[in-house]
């Protein structure tokens, strides 16, 4: 018995060297340093504005410099870019078709550089070329050219700024847009309210109505040069449509009661609004082609300020059916109405973001008015600005910036402001008179 086991051990010992060799190999492999490699996870970045150099576009007259200035101002106002002072530039660009000396631009920490040229064609049109270079990767990111009538040079500048913004941030720009708003002039007790339109930077202002009738809540069509608004033209508030290109105005529907707070559906085919009947207000849609109306809510309360989600499947609106004004969401056919706002105070003027991820609103609480955002399910409420009177948010087409109007306490009148979704970068938009009820246009086409 003993000998048997001993001989078995001996047999095993025959495999011994192989086993030992295996073990040694494994040990050695474990001890050998792996191929030298450092692997690091980076999950934080720097959200400072991106330093960018916008050089004066080469031109025979002043227009090249003016275009550069508009581009620079657009980028700076977005708060995502920090255009570098041209006095710091080392290289003077003389030929925009030649790659810049990148090292000269890296020295002043420009992460991107914009160069361009403006020339006049034989037929009098303006030819604008530009290139966007990445100074660190030393490569061209965009190169485009545009032809236009000389008076449209500002639009070309905005389009270029949009292209730069989109290429460097990954989001669509919003510079080539316009804002329609109510311009207010005259004494406080006798205000003259005119519908006005301007570029998003405040330039090219013009008036759309004479100011004889009170106008309120203008809204842009998502796909046409068309505005819907409320006016007291015939003594009673009614919803109108205004063609911006022709100046033609028409009444939306002919209802017995007053109609207010109109807004377009995302496809531009319908207008959604409130219709007052016997002290109550309900939400209706009207098809602009067939002129047929559909009733969406049926309450004894006041339902108003409807706004479609960008894909058109849901509608957010305000209602005082619970005692105070609160926000509600329903399906586009009026079904499945549910309350989404539960904070202190009352909520009004909801607007669905063009991105679809947020709803902007006015909140009244503790004697103050705030502009805030929340998710469509009511979660994640965030207040962007609070004051004596802030109201009427409207989204930039890329869903990053909100414009609203602010009425100071005491004398004075309302002014237009814009604020970034992050709650930073609040800026006043200069208008010749007081301004209220802004509505941002979609990107022009």
């Amino acid at each position, binding site marked *: 018995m003993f000998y048997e086991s001993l001989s078995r051990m001996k047999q095993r010992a025959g495999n011994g060297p192989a086993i030992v060799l295996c073990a040694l190999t494994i040990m050695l492999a474990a001890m050998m340093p792996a191929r030298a490699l450092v692997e690091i996870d980076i999950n934080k970045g*720097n959200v400072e504005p991106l330093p960018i150099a916008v050089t004066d576009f080469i031109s025979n007259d002043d227009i090249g410099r003016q275009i550069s200035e508009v581009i620079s101002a657009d980028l700076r106002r977005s708060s*995502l870019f920090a255009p570098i002072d041209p006095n710091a530039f080392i290289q003077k660009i003389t030929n925009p078709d030649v790659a810049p000396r990148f090292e000269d631009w*890296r020295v002043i920490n420009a992460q991107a550089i914009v160069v361009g040229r403006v020339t006049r064609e034989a037929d009098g049109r303006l030819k604008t*070329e530009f290139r966007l270079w990445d100074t660190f990767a030393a490569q061209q990111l965009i190169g485009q050219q*545009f032809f236009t009538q000389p*008076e*449209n040079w500002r639009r070309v500048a905005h389009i270029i700024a949009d292209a730069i913004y*989109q290429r460097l941030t990954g989001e669509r720009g919003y510079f080539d847009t316009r804002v329609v708003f109510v311009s207010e002039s005259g004494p406080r007790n006798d205000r003259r309210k005119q519908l006005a339109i301007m570029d998003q930077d405040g330039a090219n202002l013009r008036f759309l109505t004479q100011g004889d009738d009170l106008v309120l809540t203008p809204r842009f069509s998502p796909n046409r040069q068309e505005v819907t608004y409320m006016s007291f033209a015939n003594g009673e508030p009614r919803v109108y449509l205004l063609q911006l290109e022709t100046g033609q105005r028409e009444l939306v529907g002919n209802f017995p009661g007053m109609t207010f707070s109109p807004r377009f559906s995302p496809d531009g085919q319908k207008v959604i609004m409130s219709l007052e009947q016997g002290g109550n207000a309900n939400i209706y849609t009207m098809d602009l082609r067939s002129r047929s109306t559909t009733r969406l809510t049926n309450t004894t309360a006041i339902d108003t300020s409807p706004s479609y989600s960008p894909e058109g499947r849901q509608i957010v609106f305000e209602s005082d059916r619970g005692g105070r004004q609160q926000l509600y969401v329903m399906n586009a056919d009026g079904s499945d109405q549910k309350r989404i706002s539960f904070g202190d105070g009352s909520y009004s003027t909801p607007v669905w973001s063009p991105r679809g991820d947020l709803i902007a609103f006015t909140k009244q609480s503790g004697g103050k008015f705030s502009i805030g955002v929340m998710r469509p399910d009511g979660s994640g409420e965030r207040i962007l600005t609070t004051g004596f009177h802030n109201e009427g948010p409207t989204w930039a087409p890329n869903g990053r910036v909100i414009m609203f109007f602010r009425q100071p306490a005491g004398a004075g009148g309302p002014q237009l402001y814009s604020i970034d979704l992050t709650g930073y970068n609040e800026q006043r938009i200069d208008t010749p008179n007081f301004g209220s009820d802004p509505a941002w246009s979609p990107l022009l086409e």
Partner: protein
Amino acid sequence: MKIGLFISTVLHAVLLGWGLIVLSPPKSHDVADVEALPVDIIPVSSITQVQRGVKDEPEREIAAPTPTVRPEPVEDAQTIGNNTVDLKSADTEKRADLTVEKAIETASAPASEPAPVPEPKADVEPVEAPKPQAATEIASLPDKPQEVSPRPVEEPVEQPKPEEAALPERIPTPKARPEPPKRTEVAARQQSDFDADKIEALLNRQDTAGGGAARSREQASLGSDTQQVAQTLSISEIDALRRKVESCWQLVAGMSGAEDVRIQVRMNLNQSGYIDGQPQVDARGGTDTARRTLSDSVRRAVLRCEPYELPIEKYGVWSNVVLNFDPSQMF
């Protein structure tokens, strides 16, 4: 007594039996499910660096040179060499060649440095970016130019072809290897010049010994820094590198569609801490636009962060660096 013993035994047995059956085994000691606490062991290799060789020997800058091997004697030369004196051996010629070659190497070494690269502006022609071709028309209505929306059908101009876009790569590079400096020739000539040893070689008909590299005159170090520096970067070095890259990485807060994007950058660093060639950027997840934008921002970040200042003695460790960018926490 016997009865007492018996009763005692029985009682004890009963008690033990009862205990065994009735008393349940004690509850096992509950150990709370504690999550393992990650502990970083900071290498203190630089402090506790062990000396190699004799412990009490003073440290030398230069490690012990590899001992040279005495070469085998070479066969007698049968032909007359280039020398004015017949040396009967190719030994000296060989030695001269070797020296010349070495001199070329040392002389040409700086040529690989960026300094002598000609200015890119020297040849302007190849740098010319392609002219855009497609035109974009922005028309406005003649009557009311302000009212009418001019439609700048923004037709993107032809993008430059990749090879043309890669402008800096087209920098003309010198074709020919730079000539070695004159002093090398002088040195070589000096080597082949006549010297007294050769007369001795003529007179002394002994076989010459073979050539070979001269022995190092460096005294072998018995105590020096061990070359086995800890083969990893310390926590603080890694942290410094991470923070540096973070500060260089500029991106837009709240960017839509970027939460799911993950980017990996692989880069080879040279000893000065600069990236060799281009960093390799791979992006996954998210939308196309977000991937492209973030890839660009990451590429800019790593290039902007150059040079990476890391301990040179650990170059073997950081010659290859992989950075995993995860922007999800930024949005």
